[in-house]
């Protein structure tokens, strides 16, 4: 790995000029990106938005899995909770239309509550057992959402909730295209900026949490729970805190998802989604914030890239489409996952700590 060299090159103290030039260039590139993508096709802006949302989600799960070492297979449930809170409070379903800056914190709080609800009974479980319980929890939430349409119609069951309000400040709506300063801002482009801001914020939160008294306590629990307790760390509260923080992230991501899509149904929150987010964390590099972001970007973009390339390549080579792109796309995707785990078991960009843990593990 060349990261140490890279890191010192971009160190703000050692190399301020290089570092700040890098930061400014990257910011400009990220700000210009949606316009470049819009040139290719608005679909790609949407895909990018969804990828950023997954980054956000993966960073939330990283707090639970990467920092505190608690394997959570039902993480998507918190995403669902946040999404439904937003949908119910900003749609014609109950005819409530609260602004997003009120609903998002509510969604985070409700998801946080669910996080504690899941965390409390599972405190003494570890590893596989915790995974099974969290998996069950995720499914329970989804089934609830699916069935809470009678006797009182709360979630509208499998039909889902329609016409969810987009983000808006007064008359400034994030869903409507608009021309500002001579540039065309489509709805997805506007959302891109708000998602990017949220992502940057969540990266900062993750990094700061990791390098703090709380982060160290989580590391201690992951390394040796008994020793951690003997050193005075309240492992119960620390684990609950990890669940609650991760869940809040999920809740906010869910709210943003609701607003962007305008429609949600229980089908968006199936087990595969939980597995996908967990794969992003593991594949990118559990516990390393930038690794997790990289993992989320790769796993979001690769399937889409394959969707647009598998068909044309077959056309060019064989003159016709031999295998349905939808089938081969997931096959290649799975194959890529297996290869990556074989050659980089600690993730593409592992955290230094995780790498050491894997090396120390007796084989």
């Amino acid at each position, binding site marked *: 790995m060349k990261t140490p060299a890279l890191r010192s090159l971009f160190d703000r103290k050692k190399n301020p000029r290089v570092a700040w030039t890098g930061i400014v260039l990257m910011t400009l590139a990220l700000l210009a990106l949606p316009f470049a993508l819009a040139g290719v096709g608005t679909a790609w802006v949407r895909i990018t938005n969804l990828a950023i949302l997954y980054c956000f989600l993966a960073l939330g799960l990283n707090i639970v899995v990467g920092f505190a070492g608690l394997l959570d297979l039902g993480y998507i449930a918190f995403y669902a909770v946040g999404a439904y809170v937003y949908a119910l409070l900003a749609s014609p379903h109950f005819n409530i239309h609260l602004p997003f800056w009120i609903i998002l914190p509510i969604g985070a709080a409700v998801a946080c509550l669910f996080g504690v609800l899941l965390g409390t009974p599972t405190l003494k479980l570890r590893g596989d057992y915790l995974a099974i319980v969290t998996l069950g929890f995720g499914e329970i939430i989804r089934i609830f959402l699916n069935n809470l349409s009678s006797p009182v119609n709360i979630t509208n069951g499998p039909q889902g909730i329609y016409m969810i309000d987009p983000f808006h400040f007064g008359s400034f709506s994030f869903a409507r295209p608009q021309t500002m300063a001579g540039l065309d801002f489509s709805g997805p482009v506007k959302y891109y900026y708000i998602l990017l801001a949220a992502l940057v914020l969540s990266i*900062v*939160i993750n990094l*700061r*949490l990791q390098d*703090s*008294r*709380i*982060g*160290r*306590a989580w*590391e*201690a629990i992951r*390394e*040796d729970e*008994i*020793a*951690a*307790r*003997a*050193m*005075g*760390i*309240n*492992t119960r509260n620390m684990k609950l*805190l990890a669940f609650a*923080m991760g869940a809040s992230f999920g809740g906010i991501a869910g709210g943003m998802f609701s607003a962007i899509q305008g429609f949600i149904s229980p089908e968006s929150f199936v087990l595969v989604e939980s597995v996908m987010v967990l794969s992003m964390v593991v594949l990118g590099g559990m516990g390393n914030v930038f690794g997790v972001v990289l993992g989320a970007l790769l796993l979001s973009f690769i399937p889409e890239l394959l969707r647009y390339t598998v068909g044309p390549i077959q056309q060019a080579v064989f003159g016709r489409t031999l295998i349905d792109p939808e089938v081969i796309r997931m096959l290649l995707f799975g194959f890529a996952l297996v290869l990556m785990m074989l050659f980089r078991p600690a993730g593409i960009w592992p955290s230094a*700590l995780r790498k*050491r*843990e894997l090396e*120390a593990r007796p084989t």
Partner: protein
Amino acid sequence: MSSEPLALLAATGVAKRFGGVHALSDVDFTIRRGEIYGLIGPNGAGKTTLFNVLTGIYGRDEGEFLFDGEPLNDLKPNEVAERGIARTFQNIRLFANLSALENVMIGRHVRTHAGVFGAIARNARTLAEEKGIAARAYELLEYVGVAERANHLARHLPYGFQRRLEIARALATDPKLLALDEPAAGMNATETATLASLLHDIRRDGTTILLIEHDMKLVMGICDRVLVLDYGRKIAEGPAADVRNNPAVIAAYLGGDIELDTKGTQ
């Protein structure tokens, strides 16, 4: 027990059973402030069980602990640490993949306060606290002689360093009583001598020590008083020199009634 003005820890009638096994029965003892108190006994005598009961890892079946004038009953291990008892483990339990410095910094957790909001906002108070944690941790590493390897991973440290690092991590919790479970196990003579002088320093600087140890030379050399357990019962307690000559102790250690068949198995 509280009639003794200097008592830091007083145990009365402590008992612990595992199924039908009486790991501890009716153990009484008193540790005075500022002494090094030895806990010895043959393998399986219940020394580590007593440690685990004291530090809240196991629950008690009977008896009471009075620590620093207040009862110490049914507390969780982290609460015991908060009250001022820090321990090490017989088979070292460091955070193996963290650096020596990080290990000691984690020991400061219980005496510091920054929460989630402090961690995220990094306000002046949190930054000052973090600085204090690192400074104190480094100081403790110097105290136990591991400072030169502050950034080494705990699992890459030589054995003697690991033992001393574990002591530094325990000291980081500002304990009134430092409970050490066989700190000299597996050490060579030089390492044991270093350890002995470290324990003297710790006592001099005001921390009372409870020491489980098999190395009799070390125990007799540094302990003020000694408690001897055998089959979970107290068989002697008193100044080291007295205990050494106690017939019950000698019998327990030498196992008076074992006869070996020296003729072989033929």
